[in-house]
């Protein structure tokens, strides 16, 4: 049964708007005026002949001049004294850790150039998030502070130290308060340094402040079970997951780990056992998690509380006071259904909510206790330490500052002037503080108001440790000397508090020698060296205890409902506003990273911007079109944002991503989007991310998003296969419709592949669409960043893109005909499929046959090779590629001042992979199947005189994937992982009817929508 289901990438494709149709006619945004020349009098006039002669003369002259050129003198400067472990040309790998997960840092000649996951890391097991991959670029960011600053001018460290110490001594004598504000610190050594600092200055206090806060969950656990912790969730143990607005695959707490867990229960391995977890999501805006859900119900923020109460009622059989049905009948049905399924899977169920409201989280705790989740899917005894921010404490701190009680404040990895909801008040109050010190590596919004900036070193330049989950300690070790004149914040604190330990390195060593090393049975110098090779120690996990919930829920329900009524928008010109953390930019601390800015948002596919996401129906009602600017006003703050029509968005709501609108982020991040943090409020002791907002259409011109979703069109050909779990169980092969009399024919002789046939398998059921692979590919292959304007021109350079397809799922019926999709109501309930698309390395590659200069050819190992130095830029290949994966260099990105702010300046070019050429203007490029890695892997085994092992060579995309969706290997070897993966009944080849014989097999998406009642 082959699917005729309609897939579309955006509203414009669905409606076939004239611009869309026009743009899709052409391969490139700006067509070459060949026809005008041919049809007009171009050829008849005399100029072409003269021009031709001129060009000829110039060409001959240029070549003659080039021939006269003397040998250009290249200098070669060896080390004076070569470090023992460095061999030029060979990469070294060092263990380190980023945001608590163990990583490997690849360095070449002493420069870190790529981050790879540590295969033994408990979170990603070698997979990483896009943020981890991109973090290496920040090291070379030319916007970083190059010197310590005092009163806005550069200074030296010794002057700075004496100034700060003098001030602190004065404050200590006066007995006024000292405050150290940081985003969550879980490093044992850093916490030790802070404790020592406080011991030296007893009026000091440390406050954890997270811009995107999880205080709600921590407080709720304190409230419900007497444990103020962030639990450790086990999505892999859950057979049914119900989430209320928690984007646990994209941004919520430990999303990389959750992605891995989530996929492990849904992808190939689980499916082989005909098993797959079920995932029901209730949310307002379409999140990455929601787009992966089996059933997704859009609900307004004001109804979320009600929905959770309804679920509780359905599960417990009681009725909490004030509860009523949710307004949408479908949602109500879905809640009943979820309750039934949850009850059937007691002990294997998990309910999570993204809200930071204590009451909501208490109710979720009650639900999970009812379902017996504690001890199985939720672990309170090995809690996560990734977020420990205390909102109330921070607000109290702001009040202290306002009252003038604080004389010194230190900001460590915290930027409240940008991300605190009441930044205006805070900025005003900050003037009263005598000594303001920021450790920010940039002159960010907060740092620029401080009189002292002691720039912290990048983590790749630092010693340190982290403890992201109980019992798991990772080490941070430097892989390069500080690029700029920076110093670790801990070192500064040690100096300022006259700590007997002078060096932070010694401090870290002491921490490990005294306690942490013994966890793994290590000790002494040998133990330390072992740690520097393994990267972490892990204590055996404590048994997860069972917890029962026995608190009165009446008051809780009341709080939730009151809260809901506060954010309910009623009347004209009002909508419910929800702000969220986007998977790419996060809370805005990574806003100056061009790799992350250029990575399309997984769902909207917008780059370099945030926007007001709105349901199509709502926009229609209000007479708003895509790109129209609206002024959003809530909590006394207003911004102008362009509207994006987002299928799946709950009607009557607007979603806006935080992390944008930085004003002092650096050259890349400044002025990208608008700041949405001030829309949050402080309610019931925590920061809340929902509000009732007024909006007004402004008269401004329509905004054109740099949105990649429809850039590469298949002209409506079917490239996706999917099915339901029921269909899969019944007849696995039916999903992709195999064996229906497909003829294969060959115009060419079969290629001989004596040794290898490199192929890839991509499991669409494992792919969550997070985009980590895209950034990994960018880092590995020196893919340039082109910026917003060029993305608008459809000239993004990513070799690997993730296509996102919408399709309609109307009450379980698949919508197959054009006329059926005219009901815009359905846009609330769309299914989403992600498909990573890269060069398919076809055996009958259409690009190869049209290249007039043989710049793209086939190798005896099954690779479609692109030879840049042969390419003359006819672009015929791109025109002839059915997958649209070839990219043309419209500029000399690496040496063009227009692109300097992104990656192409004297600092950031240090991140380039020296094994891969940077491409020049006028040259076509595309995925090379990381041929440099293949060659290196083969050479390694030749040098070691042994056959190449399966799995030894890993593609950059494969390596970074937290869900192991990508498998690469040799098809000639029947026992290789990839051969096994491709034998799956779900395997299909995109556009295989073209008989181009692609080398990449996709495993069709399976949805667990057996009893879909939505």
């Amino acid at each position, binding site marked *: 049964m082959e699917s005729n289901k309609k897939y579309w990438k955006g509203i414009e494709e669905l409606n076939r708007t004239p611009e869309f149709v026009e743009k899709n006619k052409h391969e490139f945004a700006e067509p070459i005026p060949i026809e005008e020349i041919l049809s007009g009098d171009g050829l008849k006039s005399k100029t072409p002949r003269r021009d031709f002669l001129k060009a000829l003369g110039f060409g001959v002259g240029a070549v003659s001049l080039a021939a006269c050129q003397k040998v250009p*003198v290249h*200098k070669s400067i060896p080390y004076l004294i070569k470090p023992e472990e460095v061999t030029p040309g060979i990469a070294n790998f060092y263990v380190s850790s980023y945001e608590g997960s163990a990583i490997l840092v690849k360095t070449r000649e002493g420069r870190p150039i790529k981050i790879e996951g540590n295969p033994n890391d408990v979170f990603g097991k070698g997979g990483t998030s896009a943020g981890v991959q991109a973090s290496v670029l920040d090291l070379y960011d030319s916007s970083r502070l190059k010197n310590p600053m005092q009163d806005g001018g550069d200074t030296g460290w010794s002057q700075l130290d004496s100034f700060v110490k003098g001030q602190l001594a004065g404050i200590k004598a006066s007995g006024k308060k000292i405050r150290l504000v940081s985003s969550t610190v879980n490093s044992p050594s850093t916490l030790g340094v802070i404790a020592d600092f406080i011991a030296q200055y007893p009026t000091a206090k440390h406050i954890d402040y997270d811009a995107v806060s999880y205080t709600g969950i921590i407080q709720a656990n304190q409230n419900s079970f007497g444990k103020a912790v962030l639990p450790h969730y086990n999505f892999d143990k859950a057979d049914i997951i119900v989430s209320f607005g928690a984007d646990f695959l994209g941004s919520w707490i430990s999303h990389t780990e959750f992605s891995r867990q989530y996929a492990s229960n849904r992808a190939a391995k689980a499916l082989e056992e005909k098993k797959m977890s079920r995932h029901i999501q209730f949310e307002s805006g379409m999140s990455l998690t929601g787009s992966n859900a089996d059933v997704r119900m859009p609900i307004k923020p004001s109804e979320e509380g009600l929905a959770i109460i309804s679920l509780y009622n359905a599960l417990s059989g009681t009725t909490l006071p004030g509860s009523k049905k949710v307004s949408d009948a479908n949602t109500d049905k879905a809640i009943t259904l979820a309750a039934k399924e949850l009850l059937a899977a007691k002990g294997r169920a998990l309910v999570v909510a993204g809200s930071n409201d204590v009451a909501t989280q208490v109710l979720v705790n009650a639900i999970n206790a009812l379902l017996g989740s504690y001890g199985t899917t939720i672990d309170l005894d090995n809690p996560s330490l990734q977020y420990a921010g205390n909102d109330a404490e921070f607000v109290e701190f702001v009040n202290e500052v306002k009252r003038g009680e604080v004389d010194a404040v230190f900001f460590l990895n915290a930027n409240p002037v940008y991300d605190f909801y009441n930044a205006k008040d805070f900025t005003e109050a900050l003037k009263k503080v005598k000594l303001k010190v920021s450790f920010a590596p940039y002159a960010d919004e907060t740092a620029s108001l401080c009189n002292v900036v002691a720039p912290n070193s990048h983590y790749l330049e630092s010693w340190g440790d982290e403890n992201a989950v109980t019992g798991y300690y990772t080490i941070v070790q430097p892989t390069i000397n500080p690029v700029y004149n920076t110093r670790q914040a801990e070192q500064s604190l040690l100096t300022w508090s006259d700590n007997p330990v002078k060096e932070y390195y010694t401090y870290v060593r002491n921490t490990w020698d005294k306690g942490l090393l013994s966890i793994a049975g290590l000790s002494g110098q040998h133990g330390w060296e072992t740690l520097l090779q393994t990267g972490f120690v892990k204590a055996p996990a404590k048994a997860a205890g069972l917890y029962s919930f026995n608190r009165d829920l009446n008051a809780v329900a009341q709080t939730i409902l009151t809260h809901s009524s506060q954010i309910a928008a009623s009347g004209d010109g009002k909508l419910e506003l929800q702000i969220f953390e986007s998977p790419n930019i996060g809370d805005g601390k990574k806003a100056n990273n061009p790799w992350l800015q250029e990575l399309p948002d997984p769902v909207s596919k917008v780059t370099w911007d945030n926007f007001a996401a709105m349901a199509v129906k709502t926009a229609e009602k209000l007479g708003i079109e895509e790109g129209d600017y609206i002024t959003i006003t809530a909590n006394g703050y207003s911004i102008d944002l362009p509207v994006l029509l987002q299928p799946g968005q709950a009607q009557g709501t607007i979603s806006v991503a935080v992390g944008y609108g930085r004003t002092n982020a650096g050259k890349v991040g400044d002025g990208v989007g608008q700041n949405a943090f001030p829309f949050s409020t402080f309610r019931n002791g925590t920061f809340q991310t929902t509000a009732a907002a007024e909006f007004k259409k402004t008269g401004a011109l329509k905004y054109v998003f740099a949105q990649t979703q429809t850039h590469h069109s298949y002209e409506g050909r079917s490239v996706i296969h999917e099915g339901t779990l029921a269909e899969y169980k019944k007849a696995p092969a039916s999903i992709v419709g195999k064996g229906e009399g497909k003829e294969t024919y060959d115009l060419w002789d079969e290629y001989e592949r004596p040794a290898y046939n490199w192929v890839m398998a991509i499991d669409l059921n494992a792919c969550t669409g997070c985009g980590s692979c895209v950034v990994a590919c960018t880092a590995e292959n020196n893919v340039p960043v082109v910026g917003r304007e060029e993305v608008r021109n459809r000239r993004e350079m990513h070799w690997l893109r993730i296509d996102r397809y919408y399709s309609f799922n109307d009450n379980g019926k698949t919508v197959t005909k054009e006329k059926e999709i005219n009901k815009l109501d359905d846009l609330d309930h769309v299914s989403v499929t992600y498909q990573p698309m890269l060069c398919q390395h076809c055996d009958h590659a259409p690009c190869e046959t049209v290249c007039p200069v043989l710049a793209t050819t086939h190798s005896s190992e099954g690779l479609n*090779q692109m030879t840049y130095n042969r390419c003359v830029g006819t672009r015929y290949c791109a025109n002839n590629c059915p997958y649209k994966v070839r990219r043309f260099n419209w500029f000399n990105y690496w040496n063009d001042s227009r692109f300097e702010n992104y990656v192409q300046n004297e600092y950031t070019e240090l991140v380039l992979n020296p094994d891969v050429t940077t491409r020049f203007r006028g040259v076509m490029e595309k995925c*090379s199947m990381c041929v440099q890695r293949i060659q290196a892997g083969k050479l390694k*085994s030749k040098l070691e005189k042994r056959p190449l092992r399966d799995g030894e060579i890993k593609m950059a995309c494969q390596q970074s994937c937290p869900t192991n969706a990508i498998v690469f290997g040799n098809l000639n070897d029947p026992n290789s992982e990839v051969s096994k993966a491709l034998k799956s009944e779900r395997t299909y080849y995109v556009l295989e009817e073209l008989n181009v014989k692609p080398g990449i097999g996709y495993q069709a998406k399976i949805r667990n929508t057996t009893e879909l009642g939505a």
Partner: protein
Amino acid sequence: MRNISLILKQFSRTVLLVAGFAAMGFTAHAQGDAAKGEALFKANCTACHKIDVRMTGPALGPAISSETDDKWLTHWIQNNQALIAAKDPKALKIYNEYNQAGMNVFTNLSDGDVANIIAYVRDDWKKMQTAPAAGGATGAAAAESGPSDMLIFGLIGVIVIALIVILVLNRVVGTLEKLLLKKQNLPEEEVEEEEVVKVDRLATLKKIAKNKKLVFFIILCGTIAMGSWAWVTMWNTNVHQGYQPEQPIKYSHELHAGVMKINCQYCHSGAYKSKNASIPSLNVCMNCHKVVKTESPEIHKIYDALGYDPATQKYDSTKAKPIQWVRIHNLPDFAYFNHSQHTKVGGIECQRCHGPIQTMKQVYQYSPLTMKWCIQCHKRTGVNGKGNAYYENMVSIHDRIKKGEKVTEAEMGGTECAKCHY
């Protein structure tokens, strides 16, 4: 000193292994294995010793052959400092003879290793004496005259021939004219002829210029000559064969690699491990030049670069400034080349591409480094697959290798674009 110990560390594994076998197989004074000794000798001794000539240390051939007390020798080699400290008379004599410059301590060499080295040195010394300097046949291929030279000679030849032809033709024309005149018997002309002689040669030139055939011929030759010159020049654009830049230090490969026979890898340590052969860092030079030729102004350039004061033997890193060598072999950025692939896997000698490096006082680019040159070699050279288990899973190729057939690099896909361009 530190660096010597580093090198030792690198070899220690091999050494230990050899030592293990030695301990099993040999008694304390058993005859050593000269082959194993050679490797050890090259790894540990060549920095300061040669077999036939005195370097930093004594010429080992005569020294070791004349010393019969192997036990003492072993002690000396393993830990000479201990012998000196114990005031051993023989040890003190050598120590004083060499200005009290202490030899490195090789405690990591086992008795078996030392026996191997001694065996090798004695063998080699014996060989050298039986075959006294039979003309150091370098074995290096005579430098080919490059195609560009050929073309230039050819061009000159063409021009010379053309001139001769012109001259001959000129003569012929002249004679013919004379004959014609004679036949017509025009006396006036003859009178005039006498005057012509006075009018000088311009007239002849004018006459020649009027000869259309001749002019055409000259122009044709000129065009051909210019054309071929332009073609050759353009064809060789950016081919820098023979490029021989002045280097900041007058380092002679002839002396180090040729006369002293120092192994290439001693300095170019990356050549068998990495993509880059790598120019040695100065600490490698200092292994010897701390004591050798300390007075030379060229060696002082090394000291200056390192901030090293030979008088106090102290380093001052604040004065250090790197040496900027001029790169001779420049491959374009879009071509990937890996030394270890060719040296270690392919078993190709350095000289194959770098030419008779051991005779070069100043290094020049021996090979053209063009893609044609690469491809040609890939097409002609057999794969060095013997004993390399890597090739076992390439069934067809492995079978042919086993049969002893030649399988070229090109047949292995070695001429495909993405083998070098990515």
